[in-house]
């Protein structure tokens, strides 16, 4: 009954992934970088789901679950680090983390 062109779903995933990457590259605020990363993760989730629906298998969704757990764990640790960063430099500029240079 409802048909959709799988390519466009993948296309959407690609676009979202690129936008997320753009966000990570451009922003210097660590929180916004984390958020952009979330978008990237979402995009990959979408790609998995699209593939899953294309083949009619549940694997896509399971991979999506894995992606989500990864995202959750990653955000938890990321935000913890952000707090430490803020306490140390009381700013969220990622460029302060330059001590481990070269």
């Amino acid at each position, binding site marked *: 009954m409802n048909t959709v062109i799988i390519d466009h779903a993948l296309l959407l995933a690609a676009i979202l992934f690129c936008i997320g*990457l753009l966000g*990570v*590259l451009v922003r*210097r605020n660590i929180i916004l970088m984390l958020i952009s990363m979330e978008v990237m993760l979402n995009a990959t989730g979408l790609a998995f789901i699209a593939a899953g629906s294309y083949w009619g298998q549940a694997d896509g969704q399971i991979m999506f679950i894995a992606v989500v757990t990864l995202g959750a764990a990653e955000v938890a640790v990321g935000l913890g680090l952000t707090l430490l960063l803020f306490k140390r430099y009381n700013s969220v500029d*990622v*460029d302060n*983390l*330059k001590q481990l*240079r*070269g």
Partner: protein
Amino acid sequence: MLNLLWLVPFFPFLGFVLLVSTSGKMPKPWTTMIGAGSIGLAALTTALIAYEFLSQDMTSFQLHLWTWMEAGNFAPGFSLYLDGLALSMLFVITGVGFLIHIYASGYMYDDEDFPRFFTYTNLFVAAMVMLVLADNLVLLFLGWEGVGLCSFLLIGFWYKDPANGLAARKAFVVTRVGDTAFAIGLFLLYKHVGTLDIQEAMIKAKLLWTEDNATASLICALLLGGAVGKSAQLPLQTWLPDAMAGPTPVSALIHAATMVTAGVYLIARNHELFLLSPDMMYAVAVVGVLTLLMSGFTALTQSDLKRVLAYSTISQIGYMFLALGVGAWSSAIFHLMTHAFFKALLFLTAGTIILSLHHEQNIFKMGGLVKRLPLPCILFFIGCLGLIAVPPTSGFWSKEQILNATWESSTGGPLIWLGAVLGAFMTALYTTRMFCIVFLGPSNGDVHEPKGFKFVAPLVVLAFLALVGGVFVETAWQLPLSNVFPGGHAPHPPTVIVVIAIATPFLGIAISYLFYGKRVFSAEKFANSALMKPLKTFFDSGWAMDWFYDLLLVKPYQWLAKINKKDCVNLLPDASSAAAKILHAALSMTQNGQLRLYVGVMGTAALFVIFVVVFL
């Protein structure tokens, strides 16, 4: 007695070893005893050997001591070879050498390095005897280089003054150029003939090559190069005038009597080889003539007493080369001997004069010494007569033979004879000029005459030999050279040639006497006239050969050394290490801790990978 021949080189060498081991601690009388004594013993042994050799009129005698090197079929031995030529050379070296040593023991007595002087002279005589007695060319080369070394040591004897050092090094390097040519000649000879033993090589060469063979003339050219280097002939003669920086007995011993004649001996020893290539004989004659003319003109303008004598030595050796070139071998050796007598006499008397004028060598500062130094004046006069070749003296006999032989020989000819006669005229000119300026004319400066038997005796003996030696050898007993050289007939050129040859020296004396003796024409005005001024400076500097060699060789080599002081090949490793440093700097710039840079780089890398995977 003959097999004691090895004693002749051994005595001076023993003297050398004794003086070196005591390294100057020996008291002076002992030093003279050993120094002069060893040469005396050598002379005595030579006399005894000569007596036995001549009484049994042997042609040659070989004494093999030990084989020196042995590689493949090349096995030169450390062995001595005595024949008429070697004997006469020995007589000159040890005889005149001994007289000079006696004189030197007086002359150098108050020099603080007195033992060192005798050390070097003993080594020199040993090396020279080795050179003369060597039976193969490698041993001859040993003597050849040893003599060069000793001349270096003796020229630079007063080492405190760097100019002497420079003169010594110049002498060594210039003679070394000749020696290298000589060595290459040896290699070529060995390549074709397979042995360097002189007698064998000569026999094989005669069998191997016919007349006018290219290789033979090439070898002769190289040997001539060696002889020219050592005997200070035309291309390589610049070192001899500077060699006057050494003490006067050295100039007498090395740069008049013995070492400079080594070249003549070498060509005489290898005469069969030269006979094989007439054009090389002609080349030798031409070199001789050109040298004697060039040095004759230069001697005319010199102001230093010893340099005048040096240039006259070069010209007299030019005569010997001329004699060799025209094939008059025995007269060349005869002239060599007579030249040793009167030139040694001249040098030693000059030494006395210089010593008595407190080391003043400029002839214009001497003058009127005839009254204040009577004996040296007479001796010097006899020497000059010998040099000019005035009839009774020995110089006359030998030079006459050469001039006559030049006229007749195929490789000589009238043109070269004319050059030789002009040379004789020039010799007369500059010798009389020297004598008049030094002895006649106004006297200035105080004089004290060094007394002592050591000064007088050798000079008198030499004067006697210079005067009578020639006649005695010419008539009474021939030099034992007949069996060494191919017996050429005595030359009889037309009498008018002989008369001219005899007359020219007198003409020279007369003209020069007018200029410098009576001062009828003033020499200075003539010398400084517009035409003569540049010519005078040109002659004075030894035909600007020194300047030319400096420009051609010395300066470029020094420049080459200066620009490449830091080894340019060194840039290669240094460049690679510098490149490593630059690479390190560049890479470390990328690790600046910027997280966003890292993310960007990672993104690009991922992009590149996907691109490669997808599109390729």
